[in-house]
């Protein structure tokens, strides 16, 4: 049964509610999406600042940081980052970036903003639940931020907070900070789950007439599949973290061996969540990039159906590969081999997607707009990140590179080179729809060029550091004779990282300037087929005057016989001899 139906009457109207209900405690998915945007950009900045502290210490170990004198003596004696502060920086950089920057940017922003618009619905299925989903991020973010300032400091167990290190203050001196981390993550999990309930229900039940499953844009498919991943994986994290919290507070010993607890159980539970989590962090990016590349090449996505099944395949396989984070953990080697097989297999659907993106560019008419540049960067960087993953999949090679900077390079190629470039692409692409003003193209291209160059200069050399044997989460590599010769690479990376961070000012400036005095944007500046481009910028409350009808698939660009090089989905295709989807 493929026909979609909904009895939801469409209506737009003047929103005459008071300011607080309209813009603060709003139930409008568009406002909520924008709220997520500003909140997560703030945390992206926080995560970036923490990274600057890490890079300073690694590039110039033992030297006083600029402005380090402003920090309390306990944190940075004489302006020098202490070992405890360093691991706190590492832990909180990962935590803020994953939970408070990338996830909310990809899911909180784009799922909320795009799904109802792209499927022809007036709003999400549960608008008030949606509002809660955003507002829960505030206490979660506050608790996590507070953990930086409490007595004993923030968590210092890495974003993966392995037990028993994280169980008791005996091993680190951190007490309250780790507990706040746990509470923050549980609240975050609830926010994520409420959002996912909305996204799934909305996509299943609120599609406009004619919007069948295989006419959904790949961005919507990706966000839908991501929401399913979240529903299945985030609760397991919640359970694991709650047991950790109880170990810390009410005297349980789930993960402490002295009373029969199992440290490895923490790892299994965490990574059972953790692996689907990384697909949560990349699938929406893939969906967004698909929309933008089809638009930029003026061609349908090559192999649309394969792209859908590839995402479903990645999501499904993503649940049976978690052990590859634990190859060296002491787990049964035969079990490890089973995980190696599943891990190797999951590379196949990812490869399929890359080839389909190339196929989309083939014989296209490529427009190098800022969103397109960022989307192309995603593809080229994801190729590197994906290929580096193959080294880790091979268990004997993983033995050497596990826990080294090779892994850090891989992580950042897929998360920054992948997810963040896609986020930037999405921001540049949908900004005119969100705010009615278009970001400056020239500044956008400058931002892109600087980011792309400094990003590669920062993270590519990390592969070399890893192969040379430099471990992760090390306060001072020069303790080891065999690492000293590579110290110039660390300095190079540090300088590149500072320049990378500085380059983001260009985008921040672009956003501020455009919001303050940008020109009014066209309704459809990118000449795109999506339903969101058929309504004003920004769209009114309720989105559509009348419920749209969808006539065909989402990427009808360069259709022979059509009046323009794109046919919006709410307009029929020109008549052709053979049948079309």
């Amino acid at each position: 049964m493929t026909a979609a139906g909904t009895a939801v009457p469409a209506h737009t109207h003047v929103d005459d509610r008071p300011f607080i209900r309209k813009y603060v405690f709003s139930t409008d998915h568009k406002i909520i999406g924008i709220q997520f945007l500003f909140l997560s950009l703030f945390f992206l900045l926080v995560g970036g600042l923490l990274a600057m502290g890490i890079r300073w210490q690694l590039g110039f170990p033992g030297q006083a940081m600029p402005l380090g004198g402003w920090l309390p003596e306990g944190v940075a004696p004489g302006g020098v980052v202490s070992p405890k502060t360093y691991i706190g920086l590492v832990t909180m950089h990962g935590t803020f970036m994953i939970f408070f920057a990338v996830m909310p940017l990809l899911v909180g922003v784009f799922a909320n903003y795009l799904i109802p618009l792209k499927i022809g619905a007036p709003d999400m299925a549960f608008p008030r639940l949606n509002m809660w989903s955003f507002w829960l991020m505030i206490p979660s973010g506050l608790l996590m931020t507070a953990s930086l300032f409490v007595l004993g400091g923030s968590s210092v167990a890495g974003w993966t907070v392995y037990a028993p290190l994280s169980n008791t203050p005996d091993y680190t001196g951190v007490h309250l900070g780790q507990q706040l981390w746990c509470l923050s993550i549980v609240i975050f999990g609830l926010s994520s789950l409420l959002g996912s309930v909305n996204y799934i229900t909305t996509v299943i039940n609120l599609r406009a007439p004619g919007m069948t499953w295989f006419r959904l844009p790949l961005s919507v498919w990706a966000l839908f599949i991501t929401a399913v991943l979240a529903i299945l994986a985030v609760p397991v994290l919640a359970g694991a973290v709650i047991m950790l919290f109880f170990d810390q507070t009410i005297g349980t010993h789930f993960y402490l061996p002295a009373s029969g607890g199992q440290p490895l159980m923490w790892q299994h539970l965490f990574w059972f969540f953790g692996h689907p989590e990384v697909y949560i962090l990349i699938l929406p990016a893939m969906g967004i990039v698909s929309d933008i590349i089809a638009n930029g090449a003026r061609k349908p996505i090559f192999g649309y159906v394969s792209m859908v099944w590839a995402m479903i395949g990645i999501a499904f396989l993503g649940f049976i590969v978690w052990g590859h984070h634990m190859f060296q953990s002491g787990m049964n080697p035969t079990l490890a081999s089973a995980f190696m097989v599943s891990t190797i297999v999951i590379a196949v659907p990812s490869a399929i997607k890359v080839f389909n993106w190339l196929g989309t560019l083939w014989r296209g008419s490529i427009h190098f707009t800022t969103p397109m540049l960022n989307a192309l960067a995603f593809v080229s960087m994801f190729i590197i990140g994906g290929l580096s993953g193959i080294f880790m999949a091979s268990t004997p090679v993983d033995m050497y590179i596990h826990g080294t900077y090779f892994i850090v390079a891989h992580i950042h190629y897929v998360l920054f080179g992948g997810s963040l470039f896609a986020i930037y692409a999405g921001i540049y692409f949908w900004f005119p729809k969100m705010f009615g003003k278009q970001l400056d193209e020239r500044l956008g291209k400058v931002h892109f060029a600087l980011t792309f160059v400094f990003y590669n200069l920062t993270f590519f050399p990390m592969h070399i550091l890893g192969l040379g044997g430099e471990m992760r989460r090390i306060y001072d590599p020069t303790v080891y004779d065999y690492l000293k010769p590579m110290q110039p690479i660390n300095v190079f990376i540090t300088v590149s990282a500072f320049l990378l961070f500085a380059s983001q000012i260009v985008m921040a400036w672009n956003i501020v300037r455009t919001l303050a005095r940008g020109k009014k944007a066209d309704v459809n500046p990118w000449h795109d087929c999506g339903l969101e481009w058929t309504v004003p910028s920004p769209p009114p409350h309720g989105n559509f005057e009348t419920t749209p009808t969808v006539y065909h698939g989402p990427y009808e660009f360069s259709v022979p016989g059509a009046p323009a090089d794109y046919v919006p989905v709410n307009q029929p295709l020109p008549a052709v001899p053979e049948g079309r989807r």
Partner: protein
Amino acid sequence: MTAHAATHGMAGGAGGEHAQGAVGVHTQKLGMWVFLVSEVMFFTALIGSYIILRWGTNAEWPEPRTVLAIPITAANTFILICSSVSMVKAYAAAVRDDQPGLKKWLLLTVLGGATFVSVQAFEYHHLVEKGFLPSSGLFGASFYTMTGFHGFHVTCGVLSMIWVTIRAFRGKYAGGRFHGIETIGLYWHFVDLVWIILFTIVYLI
């Protein structure tokens, strides 16, 4: 009332009471199903950990019946199951627009749920007095964690059920608007099912 509120109505969001989508499942019910899937995963994490700790390691584990009061908990389980029966009856009453029946069966469900929580709380008190705490080995840790979170979910269910009952008394489910009863019924049955599993593997085995 603002123009916004007038056009959006009170409950159910964009779907409203009558939204029916592609899979033929009412939106509110679909949302509850999706939420329950996440709850299944949450309890799976806790119960799975329990199973590993109890049967996958060499840890010390007392016989449950030497620590826990099986007879009274069995009676309590029966009460919770009865409250699921009354929930089914409440839904049937709502479907045939029998408002007095709906109100009666909802009240009985609230009573059953509240009784269950109270008896559990009393049992906790008793166990703590005996010296059985969350820090009493892995059994104590997993017992309190699993039953505690279950109790928390039942409590949320009871509070929601009270709110639904109040709305029923105000006639919000009259005239064929029974979907909300079905939705909360789903949650209620789920909570009951989790308890049956917990009772079996924590108390009985």
